[in-house]
């Protein structure tokens, strides 16, 4: 082993107050200057582990067993004052959402230097100078001006970098990064990641880099741990994990990337929209002059960053937002912009599936009510015929009819999204608008849902307008692709044409910035992202 590790977690078990395990017998060590990736799906306990590495257990959780040694000290065994000293001088934390992690009442630079000055590690002047220098090195414009601002005045991507500067302030031996770029757009993500990587390399700090995205962590870490249900199921050098993932959980992290389907061209026109312009309330236009065609039995994917107008487009087509100008036709007949002007049959033919089934299904209703309502409404089914159709729908989305009496809150995430799909299919629609329907699910379940969507399309001939920000998902589902930016369509066409030979700069940038595990991807992506911004 040689030199003693900087961080040494031994046999750590953490449970909820009720006794349910969150971490089970975790062993983990980190050498000085090493970056260790910690990868897991939601609920795997990775944040809890990251905080435990700093000697912190959140309220509602309790440490059942185990010790955490950091640089010769057992963090759970030293008095609070001593622990505070260790945290201030030698360790740091970068949270997922910098927007909520900064105190809204203080200026940014004051927050960056607070701990160092408070503990007398350096005088205020030195601290300020270092804070400004670090911010500049992280690529933040006008650090002096920025530092005088309050958190709410600064964008998310910048705040994430300011938080990194705060973590670097005392040149700590260990930094825990907790999903530091998850809330950012792919282009911003690439730039922030590269800034973090460079600063880490310069300072020689060790880091625990927590994420759910194997491709992201492959760019940052020398070694990777896979966490699943509170247990470390695989641990290896980054190249080894990428080349030969041993555990099924690890292989599942690539699940969506592995799901591919041949794109199909042609098909008769189902929906046609011309020159759609739309905006909310009295605000300015969000959509500009959008034209699109959706063929019957095909999937059109709409991709773009947040704020590109892709969600607004979906809302206009389903009738939630009336366009300010432009026309829509369904099967050649005019489609009114306002939901109220669409008759029952139009409402039946165009259905909408929301991103989060947790909030899209009424938690007070049972699965049976969820499916019965549209069937009663659209097909006027009653009694035995209704019961039979409900069971049929459940089988169609591969759900056990025994789940019918459950309330939606008692179903798992994947089951809920299947139920939401079944509800959308209940009236036999022609077009289903899917708004990021897989993005809040774990990768394995994403692949299952994508497969289900494809199968249902073959069986029923339904068309999908599939809104997403994830390029892997596009490859897995789309026949045609629409790329949006700033409320306009910047490129559209057959999937393989758009993805393999992109014409517009926006598409190229999106493709370049989508995380890839290949070495050197990050540097290329970041430079592409920077170029575009100028």
């Amino acid at each position, binding site marked *: 082993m040689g030199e003693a590790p900087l961080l040494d977690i031994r046999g750590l078990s953490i449970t909820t107050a009720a006794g349910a395990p969150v971490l089970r017998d975790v062993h983990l060590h980190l050498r000085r200057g090493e970056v260790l990736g910690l990868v897991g799906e939601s609920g795997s306990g990775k944040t809890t582990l990251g905080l435990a590495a700093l000697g912190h257990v959140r309220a509602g959780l309790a440490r059942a067993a185990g010790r955490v040694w950091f640089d010769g000290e057992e963090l759970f065994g030293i008095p609070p004052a001593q622990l505070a000293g260790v945290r201030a001088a030698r360790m740091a934390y970068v949270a997922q959402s910098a927007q909520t992690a900064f105190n809204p009442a203080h200026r940014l630079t004051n927050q960056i230097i607070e701990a160092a000055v408070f503990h007398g590690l350096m005088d205020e002047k030195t601290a300020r100078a270092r804070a400004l220098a670090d911010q500049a090195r992280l690529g933040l414009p006008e650090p002096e001006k920025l530092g005088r601002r309050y958190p709410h005045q600064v964008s998310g991507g910048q705040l994430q970098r300011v938080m990194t500067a705060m973590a670097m302030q005392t040149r700590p031996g260990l930094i825990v990064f907790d999903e530091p770029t998850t809330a950012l757009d792919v282009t911003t993500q690439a730039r922030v990641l590269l800034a973090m990587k460079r600063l880490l390399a310069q300072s020689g700090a060790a880091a625990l880099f927590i994420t759910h995205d194997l491709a992201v962590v492959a760019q940052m870490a020398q070694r990777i741990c896979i966490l699943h249900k509170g247990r470390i199921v695989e641990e290896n050098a980054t190249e080894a994990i990428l080349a030969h993932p041993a555990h099924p959980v690890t292989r599942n992290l690539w699940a969506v990337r592995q799901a591919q389907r041949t794109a199909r061209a042609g098909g008769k026109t189902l929906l046609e929209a011309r020159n759609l312009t739309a905006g909310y309330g009295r605000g300015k236009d969000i959509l500009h002059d959008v034209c699109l065609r959706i063929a019957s039995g095909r999937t059109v994917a709409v991709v773009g960053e947040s704020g590109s107008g892709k969600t607004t487009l979906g809302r206009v087509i389903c009738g939630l937002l009336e366009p300010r100008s432009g026309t829509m036709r369904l099967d050649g007949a005019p489609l009114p912009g306002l*939901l109220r002007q669409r008759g029952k049959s139009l*409402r039946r033919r165009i259905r909408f599936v929301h991103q*989060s089934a947790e909030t899209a299904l009424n938690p007070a*209703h049972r699965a049976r009510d969820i499916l019965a309502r549209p069937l009663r*409404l659209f097909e006027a089914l009653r009694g035995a015929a209704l019961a039979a159709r409900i069971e049929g729908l459940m089988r169609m989305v591969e759900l056990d009819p025994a789940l019918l009496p459950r309330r939606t809150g008692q179903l798992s995430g994947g089951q809920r999204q299947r139920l939401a799909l079944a509800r959308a299919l209940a009236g036999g629609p022609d077009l289903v608008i899917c708004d990021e329907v897989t993005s809040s699910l774990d990768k394995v379940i994403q692949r299952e849902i994508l497969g289900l969507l494809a199968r249902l399309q073959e069986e029923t001939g339904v068309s999908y307008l599939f809104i997403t920000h994830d390029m892997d998902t596009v490859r897995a589902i789309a026949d045609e692709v629409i790329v949006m930016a700033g409320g306009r369509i910047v490129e559209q066409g057959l999937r393989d044409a758009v993805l393999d030979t992109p014409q517009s700069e926006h598409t190229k940038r999106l493709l370049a910035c989508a995380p890839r595990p290949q070495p050197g991807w990050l540097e290329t992506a970041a430079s592409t992202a920077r170029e575009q911004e100028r």
Partner: protein
Amino acid sequence: MTSRGLHFSPRRERVTAGRILAAAIVWLYVLTALLGPWIAPYGEAQISAEPFAPWSAAHWLGTDQLGRDFLSRLVFGMRNSLFLALAITIASFALGGSLGLLAAAGPRLADQILSRLVDVFMALPALIFALMLLAIFGTGAAQLIVVIAALDATRVFRLTRALAMREAALEYVEAARLRGESLVWIMGREILPNITGPLLAEAGMRFAFVFLTIATLSFLGLGLQPPAADLGSMVRETATLITYGDFTPLIPALVIAILAGAVNFLIDGYQAQPVPGGDDG
């Protein structure tokens, strides 16, 4: 393992000895109120001894300023106040609750009108408003019910609207709109079941509060018309005894406090916390 309980309660509280005691107290009050006429040793307005008689075997708590049995008045007063508070709470929830749902799920204009109206009514403390209306309409059970229920409905409206607004922003309501559901369906079948938990807790709070308001008004001499018994006026009418070191007049007040306390205690932790100005975070 389908649970049929209040699955929407924010957090399930433990069943503690304190809670069992509080529930027992509430039941005791309900029973006493229901069985009042059979439990009370004397009639509600029956003069059975000399005024201000001391505690005795015939009159356990003595008599009041007119020579009526204090214990019997206590039982009837409790019964009257309890039924009155119940009627007011039900009325205020029917009115404030349905308008609150309408404001949250209905057209923007309805919300604006209703909210501004409620703002005006809430720009005056409830007790002052009640006093003014009672000055105009006179006192009596019917006036009490109408005035307090109307004022209380403004508070219920605010809470219902806030709770329902939060639900109305969720996608399941949007999904219902996309299906073409009616406003009544969205209010009653989509939103209401999801806010029943906090509303029930609030109903408990409001009941305790109404009970206290009735006591306060009757203490001020603006409650039920004599000879009907009510707890607040019993305190006022016999208060002089206190200056002689006799705490009998405090018993009706204690009866009020114990019920209000038991209800509050049962509900503490369930209710949507009244945190004003919590919207800036």
